[in-house]
């Protein structure tokens, strides 16, 4: 295992642990306002200080991690569960009208700038975590469809697939039993990358007020709220900012490390 993978997995699991822990324990109630205690800098009672309503920043970051992870995870889930079958189907029927339909549909979605469309979706259907998940999820579909189709196409040429066809297996069964396991590595790596992009997209949406609505904490909204206070309470912006940076960095390092680790060619070269 490479150093990237260890560092990335460490950072990512730290965030995941914080999110999981927040279900059972946070130092303070994340939604409890305590206005006399507002704008404290980090100290022994409030490890990350307090915000403009006197809420404990550490608790908010923990619960915010939960929001980010939940939105990104579900969005990647939507992308994978729709994109992978589409990609497999397109590869199995290469060159057919179905392939064309799926891939041109993907091109269509790809052609739009994702965050702008996500803003459009949430503006039309209302701001909130669920619509943010759907908006981000839709843009994950073509990513997974393409990568699956590309990898599957080269597999279809291989002898063991030929053997399966000779044995009388249908396209759907071959896709599920032989193709899918062989593209799983790629999907895991891509999933990690998409996950980090999902975290960024969620932060972007909630920064413009279209993500999870208050009082549910979200890192992007914490940044937006801190904007006018940067000059006298910089920790309000720095802390959620670093949370986003470290999470995305961790996931990207992990994705890189996983690719190196799972890629058979590199593995062979290394051994």
């Amino acid at each position: 295992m490479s150093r990237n993978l260890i560092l990335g997995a460490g950072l990512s699991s730290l965030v995941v642990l914080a999110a999981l822990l927040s279900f059972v324990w946070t130092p303070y109630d994340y939604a409890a306002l305590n206005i006399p205690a507002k704008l404290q800098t980090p100290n022994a009672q409030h490890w990350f200080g307090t915000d403009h309503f006197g809420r404990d920043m550490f608790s908010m970051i923990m619960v915010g991690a939960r929001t980010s992870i939940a939105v990104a995870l579900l969005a990647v889930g939507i992308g994978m569960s729709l994109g992978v079958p589409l990609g497999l189907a397109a590869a199995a029927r290469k060159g057919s009208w179905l392939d064309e339909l799926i891939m041109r549909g993907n091109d269509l979605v790809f052609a739009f700038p994702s965050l702008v469309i996500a803003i459009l979706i949430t503006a039309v259907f209302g701001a909130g975590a669920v619509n943010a998940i759907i908006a981000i999820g839709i843009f994950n579909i073509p990513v997974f469809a393409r990568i699956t189709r590309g990898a599957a196409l080269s597999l279809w040429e291989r002898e063991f697939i030929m053997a399966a066809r000779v044995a009388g297996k249908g396209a759907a069964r071959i896709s599920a039993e032989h193709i899918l396991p062989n593209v799983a590595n790629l999907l895991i790596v891509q999933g990690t990358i998409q996950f980090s992009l999902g975290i960024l997209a969620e932060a972007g949406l909630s920064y413009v007020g279209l993500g999870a609505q208050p009082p549910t904490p979200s890192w992007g909204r914490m940044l937006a709220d801190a904007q006018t206070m940067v000059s006298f309470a910089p920790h309000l912006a720095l802390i959620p900012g670093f949370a986003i940076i470290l999470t995305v960095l961790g996931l990207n390092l992990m994705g890189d490390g996983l690719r190196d680790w799972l890629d058979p060619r590199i593995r062979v070269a290394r051994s």
Partner: protein
Amino acid sequence: MKRIVNRGLVSGLALSAALFAGAAWAKDDITIAMQLEPPHLDPTSAAAQAIDSVVYVNIFEGLTRFMGDGSIVPALAESWEISDDGTVYTFKLHEGVTFHDGSAMDAEDVKFSLDRARAEDSANAQKALFAGIDSVDVVDPLTVKVTLKEPNGNFLFNMAWGDAVIVAPESIENIKTAPVGTGPYTLGEWVQGDKIVLNRNPGYWGAEPALEQATFKFISDPTAAFAAMMAEDVDVFTGFPAPENLPQFEADPRFQVLVGSTEGETILSTNNKQPPFDNIKVRQAMAHAIDRQAIIDGAMFGYGTPIGTHFAPHNPAYVDLTGNSAYDPDKAKALLAEAGFPDGFETTLHLPPPSYARRGGEIIAAQLAAVGIKAEITNVEWAQWLETVFKGKNFGLTIVSHTEPMDIGIYARPDYYFQYDNPAFQELMTTLNSTTDPDKRTELMQQAQRMISDDYVNGYLFQLAALSVAKAGVQGLWANAPTAATDLSAISWSE
């Protein structure tokens, strides 16, 4: 007598203006920033306060006008006489007043303006101001007689509103983009989305103002507002959107901070027809669940005065009724149980963009949650707010500041968005409108304040503070905002 005093004042102003003009080093232009850009420039056909902020007493003038302290003084009307029964107002107009296009302003224009505003198909946003007018008659070119259906003690006040300014029939067609008024400034240039430039009107009938040119810049983002002011890109920011930044300006010798009062009663508007808010016990419970001081400190960083009814605290007729809805969560819970909601209920809370609403909303949602009321927050833009809440009445709760002066009358309109329908209150307002005796009026206004407070129509939060930041050398700015206005004639540079 009134006339003499007035002339004296005018010539005094003219003299001081002349002295200023003689001083070669005096800066004679200014850049004033505000948050919202006007949708157009006709104050007589829209409710947008941003229009008045630019044009009121700069481009357009009415028969009377507001001063910075809230008093009403003569403007285009030099003097007036009121008949003994209080129904006939005879206005004597100033002589030699011309519109920006050179045409004379006379009694015909006054008649045109008032008739236009009160017409059946009028687009005026405050038609109620003119509802009591029975007829407008031209006596001679400088005398106009307004007959009211019944005495109205508010009439001179009504005529001071931006919605009642005098316009000319010749230029009415393009008034929204090419406003032609009688004021001391003319429209120079309007770069949409950026700025409006006003130039001094050389043919102005009154005293010449000190400033040659004024530029209104529109900066909606609070962070950008802070940056523009700090970088001295603008000279003044009226209605500064980020109260949290004011201490920094106060500490900086380059700037001055003006904290005054506005006519903005900031309230937790409640949909009185939507269950469970049709139950007075529920509304009372909410009133006791709210801690006003926490909202003022948390959302406005201490700027604002708690209110207990829909009335401005700086008004002499104001009654402090905050005790009627003192913060008492236990009482709130008990009242909810009495009303049949021991476990609370769920509702919606629509929040428009200003920080008093967005931040105040988060605090109120937390305070309501503490007594069991779960208010789901939806942040909306102004257009959406007008559509859903104001016109559609499709909301449970919302937070908004009612910035019109003396607007307790909205509670007499059962179809107004918060849908308070109380015949006793409507009757009280009718009586008030037909009463001219000041003591009697005060009594009636206090009665009205008590009635809506006792009915817990809305959650009364605080009076919005007027927050302005200016460079140290700017003088003559209005600290208070009795109406939306930027009185350029009063502004000058100290060196």
